[in-house]
């Protein structure tokens, strides 16, 4: 567990959207709502289609800790609740950072997160405020 915590510190995730998207900033609260299935919209009213990384990936753990301060186990229980209440399905999942960038560019989803080191100009960083 200690090992995990240390690694997490070094895995800095950034929230990204496709480069041609108009969204440039988002509040941590709104981000948390979108990725916990509590909101379907960006603040400007457009539809939010979140994309997750693989369960147990460092990026996913770091991201959810950042936006919700919940542990992976708590997040899993949260999604189990939503699925089995018929209130929603968890965001789609991408295999890795490269897949996130690819899917953001090729529609279907419009917001995700990747390791900062995987950044390139196909996607745009969204500032969290």
């Amino acid at each position, binding site marked *: 567990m200690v090992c995990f915590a240390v690694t997490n510190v070094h895995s800095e995730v950034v929230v990204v959207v496709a480069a041609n998207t108009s969204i440039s900033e988002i509040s941590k*609260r709104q981000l948390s709502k979108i990725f916990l299935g509590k909101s379907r919209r960006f603040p400007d009213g457009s539809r939010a289609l979140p994309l997750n990384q693989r369960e147990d990936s460092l990026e996913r753990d770091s991201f959810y800790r950042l936006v919700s301060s919940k542990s992976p*186990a708590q997040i899993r229980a949260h999604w189990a609740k939503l*699925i*089995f*209440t*018929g209130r929603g399905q968890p965001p789609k999942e991408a295999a890795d950072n490269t897949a996130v960038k690819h899917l953001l560019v090729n529609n279907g989803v419009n917001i995700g997160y990747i390791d900062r080191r995987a950044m390139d100009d196909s996607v745009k960083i969204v500032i969290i405020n």
Partner: protein
Amino acid sequence: MATNNRLKTRIRPLFATAIITVCGLSGHQAIALDDAYPTYSFNGFATLGAVYSDEDQADFVSSWLLQPNGAGSTSEWHAGVDTKLGGQLDIQFNTAFSAVLQVVVQRQEDNAWTPEIEWANIKYQFNDALSLRLGRTVLPTFMVSDTRLVGYANPWIRGPQEVYQLNPLTNLDGLDLVYNLELENGRNTLQFNLGETDRDVVQNGEINARNVMLISNTLEYHFATFRFSYLHAKLDLSIEQADELIDAYAMLGNALSLIPGQEANAAQAEAISTRYLIKDAPVEVFSVGVKLEPGNWLLMSEWGRVSDTGALAEVQGGYTTLAYHFPSLMPFLTLAEVNGDTPDEPGLSTTGMPTPLATEVNQLNQGLNALLFQTAAAQKSITVGLRWDFHPGSALKLQYQYIDTDKQSPGRLGNVQSGFSPGGTVNVFSTAIDFVF
């Protein structure tokens, strides 16, 4: 590129053989690319549980109306109290239309592991705020009614019985209207249900609720959730123990009315049979709940009250759970209590009756009082437990419950034997592994 191809090829076979192949898939692959409707996703849940009870004259059961026996008198350890398997198929036809089918296998009132359709409904999402479901939906009496059967989604092995047994019905055939209001720091959900339901219960019985109307409101704000619900229904409940008693008083009333000098007793016998019959009887269930999750703490508390309905006395119950989330361990403590306003029922007077008849009437009166105490069963309990999320989607739970039954009833125990003496304490140890997949 590779990822996208993989997603597309996976959707196609799902179209053709959704029901068959769906069982082998995990829940996360429902890739709803906009051009790929309808999409299917299958999710499952399971609990493997075992319960030990040191009470040898009654059984620890998940509900005395729904399980004929359990741990204790039937066998010290019992695996059929919490064990269950459920599967849920979600179909999204387009952005507005969707359908859900949930089937659950658990031990029924006749001891058989019969699969039952827990939910089967279609949903129309008018807009972000308003949705309508038609068909069989959850009956959301309490805060975790939605996930009552999904052990993994709950902190404990089972919802505290002191509250969750107040209404043994879990679903409703009818309509479900939800209005969701997104707030700056949370969300408010107003829900309205209308319909009817019936369910087989122990002792060859049946419970039937018609004209069910339930209104509930859930406010999630920051780390807090507040909920209330109000249910109104017309109830029929028949179980052998109650039916026989009520019939006996009715017959006695008829017989006594033919005996000169017994007119008063005849009328009283008739009144008793009418008073405790549960037929087309109005019932109300009121509940409130609070859940606070600041940081790693969890504090959850619910209280519910069921109105007096025939032989079912007015009962109220409550619990409070306190838990702390460590990375993969969660210890918890629950304090719970349920008690009923058992009617002070002297039974039928034996004035002027010959001794053999008086003896029989006294036995009948004792039977009636035993029934009234059973339905108003009171108990207090303390539970300490531990949840260990040892693997993604799997949790191991251990819990120890110390139950203090009241002086006149078996508390929430079922399959009560004649040798049972009320007013004692019961030690219950439960363990379960919960899965979602």
